[in-house]
């Protein structure tokens, strides 16, 4: 390396080594092979390394924030998306029933066989102990009305169902009554010794139950039931297992094991005599018809519809919430629309869309003149007027909403001012004129509505009511708790978001264009419409998308001034999260809204560019 450089150095500076000059000379030489950097490595490689380093440095700076945002924000959104299809609760609560239902032929119109009902008993017993049956009931109630009360009612009685066996075992031998004896039978010796040595004041320190070897093979159902019981008492209830008596479920499991031919003759462990006596006696035991018992609790258990619903929502993932969110439902016959009187979400989405569009339209209407004025006034007065735009922008949302609530009330400032105005001489003279003008406008609007209704008959849209004509004489206006309130308040709140992007676009349009157009003979209107307006369209686009995105997901303002008619889909989402607790449906509604917003976000990025978002001038 050194030799070569030494031979190749030229010129007055006879430095040998990696100087920039030498590298340049090397590079200039046609026969020097690949272009080299100052230190002799190929320039391409060296540049690549530098680039990689700078990329890495940039990523290292970004990484903490990226991780932070992903954990605190992206993960929650992903969780919400997941929840909109998640449906573990049925399979988790009724695993045996779902498995048993696999064999059921629902076309016969009969409820499933006895084995399924027995599986239901086992699942329900555990669910009732864990108090999970009411949650399952409310989950299934979203799909079939009446499920909630069915599960609650059955939950109260299912505990008694297996007591037939418990009583018979206990009558046979007092031995079976006592939880201590059960523990001695089921638990290992080492665990029993550990229980002896356990200091009961240390609640958390209870030695976990261990099953005696060989029992699971000999009495499989009893072992499972007892294991579940022991685990529940120790972990969930945190009670002393030695002081508890087993669930009735354990007795029915023991009965099942013994009648299904468990071989206890070879058994040598504790309580061998009692177990063998029981094995000899069980054949004479009275049994339980689970199907009859369940139907006795509630006749709905004989209804195949109930079972179809349970089976339909058995899988871990469901599209049921999404179907629900668009007013459809999953039935055993397939997907179909809900009955007319239950269709609320499509209407709500439609209303959210229409109202957001109306608000965006109002913002363009009010924002355009103001932005034009700000962009064309001298800087000093424009800055002064800009404060009037920025002050509302910076004022708390709650302040502005409460101001509108105060102003728009029946007894509020606006109505009081109107009442006062109508009582003055000016008002009395002008009232008939204003009424006449209003009625002309309303008449024009009604003509539009009439044509719309005529056409809606053709394409099947919703009919719109005609506006009522204004009558002379003043009644206090209903400005709040309806659509009007929401639109007024939200237009005010979102107007700065329209004015600011419009202004920043208009400020770049040279005013000479308008003057040039006019000097060439254009009228005011032509000059504006053909020259100025097209240049301001990007501002309108940016502002509209911004306002629309913000409006479509608004919650606070509609909640306070919207009443029942002026609310958005967001209010319904909040209702499902905090009041009806139908989180899956809330997540599905949210996912649809999110998809709409992301689509708009993408459009905004394409049209305006995320980097060009400006805040407060």
């Amino acid at each position, binding site marked *: 390396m050194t030799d070569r450089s030494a031979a190749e150095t030229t010129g007055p500076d006879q430095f040998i080594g990696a100087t920039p000059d030498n590298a340049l000379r090397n590079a200039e030489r046609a026969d020097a092979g690949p272009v080299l950097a100052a230190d002799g490595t190929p320039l391409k490689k060296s540049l690549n390394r530098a680039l990689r380093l700078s990329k890495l440095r940039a990523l290292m700076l970004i990484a903490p*924030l990226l991780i932070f945002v992903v954990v605190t*924000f992206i993960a929650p959104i992903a969780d919400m998306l997941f929840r909109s299809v998640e449906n573990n609760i049925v399979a988790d609560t009724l695993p045996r029933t779902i498995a048993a239902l696999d064999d059921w032929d629902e076309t016969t119109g009969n409820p499933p066989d006895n084995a399924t009902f027995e599986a239901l008993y086992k699942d329900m017993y555990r669910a009732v102990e864990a108090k999970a049956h009411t949650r399952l009931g409310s989950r299934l109630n979203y799909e079939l009305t009446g499920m909630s009360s069915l599960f609650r009612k059955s939950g109260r009685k299912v505990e008694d169902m297996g007591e037939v066996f418990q009583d018979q075992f206990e009558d046979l031998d007092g031995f079976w009554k006592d939880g201590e004896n059960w523990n001695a039978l089921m638990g290992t010796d080492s665990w029993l010794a550990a229980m002896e040595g356990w200091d009961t004041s240390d609640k958390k320190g209870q030695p976990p139950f261990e099953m005696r070897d060989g029992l699971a093979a000999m009495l499989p159902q009893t072992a499972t039931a007892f294991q579940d019981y022991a685990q529940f008492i120790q972990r969930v209830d945190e009670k002393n297992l030695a002081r508890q008596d087993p669930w009735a479920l354990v007795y029915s499991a023991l009965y099942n094991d013994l009648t299904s031919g468990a071989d206890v003759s070879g058994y040598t462990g504790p309580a061998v005599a009692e177990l063998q006596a029981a094995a000899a006696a069980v054949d004479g035991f009275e049994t339980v018809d689970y199907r009859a018992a369940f139907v006795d609790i509630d006749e709905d258990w004989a209804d195949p519809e109930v079972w179809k619903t349970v089976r339909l929502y058995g899988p871990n993932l469901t599209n049921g919430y999404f179907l629900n969110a668009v007013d459809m439902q999953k039935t055993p016959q397939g997907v179909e629309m809900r009955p007319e009187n239950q269709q609320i979400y499509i209407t709500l989405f439609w209303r959210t869309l229409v109202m957001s569009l109306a608000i965006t339209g109002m913002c363009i209407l009010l924002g355009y*003149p103001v932005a034009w004025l700000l962009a064309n006034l001298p800087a000093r007065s424009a800055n002064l007027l800009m404060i009037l735009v920025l002050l509302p922008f910076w004022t708390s949302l709650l302040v502005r909403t409460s101001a509108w609530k105060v102003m728009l009330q029946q007894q509020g400032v606006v109505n009081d001012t109107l009442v006062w105005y109508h009582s003055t001489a000016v008002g009395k003279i002008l009232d008939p004129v204003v009424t006449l003008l209003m009625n002309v406008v309303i008449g024009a609007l009604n003509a539009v509505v009439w044509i719309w209704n005529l056409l809606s008959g053709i394409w099947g849209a919703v009919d719109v009511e005609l506006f009522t004509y204004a009558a002379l004489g003043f009644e206090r206006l209903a400005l709040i708790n309806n659509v009007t309130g929401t639109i007024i308040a939200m237009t005010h709140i979102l107007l700065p978001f329209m004015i600011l992007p419009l202004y920043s676009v208009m400020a770049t349009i040279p005013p000479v264009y308008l003057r040039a157009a006019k000097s060439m003979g254009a009228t005011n209107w032509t000059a504006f419409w053909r020259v100025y307006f097209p240049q301001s369209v990007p501002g309108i686009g940016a502002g509209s998308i911004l306002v629309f*995105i913000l409006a479509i*997901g608004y919650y606070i303002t509609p909640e306070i001034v919207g009443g029942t008619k002026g609310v958005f889909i967001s209010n319904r989402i909040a209702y499902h999260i905090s009041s009806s607790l139908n989180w899956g449906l809330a997540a599905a509604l949210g996912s649809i809204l999110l998809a709409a917003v992301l689509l708009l976000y993408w459009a905004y990025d394409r049209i305006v560019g995320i980097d060009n978002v400006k805040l407060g001038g």
Partner: protein
Amino acid sequence: MAKRSTISKSAPWIGAAVLAVLGLVTAGPAYAILGALSGFVIGWLVFWIAERRYRDAVPSYYTAGQTLWHYAFRVICGGIFVFLITPILVVMPLSFNAEDFFTFTPEMLAFDPEGYSLKHYRDFFSNSDWQNAVRNSIQIAPMATLLSVSFGTLAAIGLSQPHVPFRRAIMAILISPMIVPLIISAAGMYFFYSRIGLQGTYLGVVLAHAALGIPFVIITVTATLVGFDNSLTRAAANMGASPVRTFFKVQMPLILPGVISGGLFAFITSFDEVVVVLFVGSAGQKTLPWQMFTGLREQISPTILAVATLLVVISVLLLMTLELLRRRSERLRGMSPG
């Protein structure tokens, strides 16, 4: 411009005096003020039209129609400005109402001192609910701001480097908390934070608010960095400064206005935020906006107006700070404040 006669100059005042006296005699003190204002306007308007002074502001070639439109347009804009500012102006006097009403009482209109009182402010400062809410807000907002500013500034510097892989995608992720509707963020955070045990905790609310404030920090700081001369850091490194020293001594002072205004945005986002805290927080994290929201939805009390007035004062202060920062930033970068 023609010289104005004395009568033209004094007409507004004469009109004001006449109508004020008329109003005082016929109705009362409130009408006197109303009369004075309208008299002033009428007196001025009459001579403004009579002396054709309205022609002064428009080019001389304007037709009558164009002149009329010129002024009509300004009147329309004035109306829109009134619409923008009225709600904020109305709450202020109403917060001094002596009654528990949400409209101006006859006493208030008569400027009777009896009609005014500070009782809603007293209620705000003595009521433990409101004081707790203030305390919670003060505890949450600065922490959230600190988190978003420190992470956000670092990332903004990273994003302003010339070669950042996946720049668009990263930017989209970092800006998304601003774009996703609050109710969806709130729902997602509620589900996710209750899974990991952060729901209903102080930390949970702070993290959620920090996430919401980050886009504002990113946007303002990257905007400041656009005008930043990178040769300055190279010069500093050349003179032997370590990267950390360069950052604090050279880069930070220059981008500080952007960082502070980003911080203010983040602060106001957290301080003003109600939807997310409503879901992620529990009663122990009840912030001021939450308390206002409950008040508005359930038992609306005029104390809310007192709080609203105080918040408006705070936002005016914030707005002034931001404007000063903007001017300073432009001065530093050699632009004249415009």
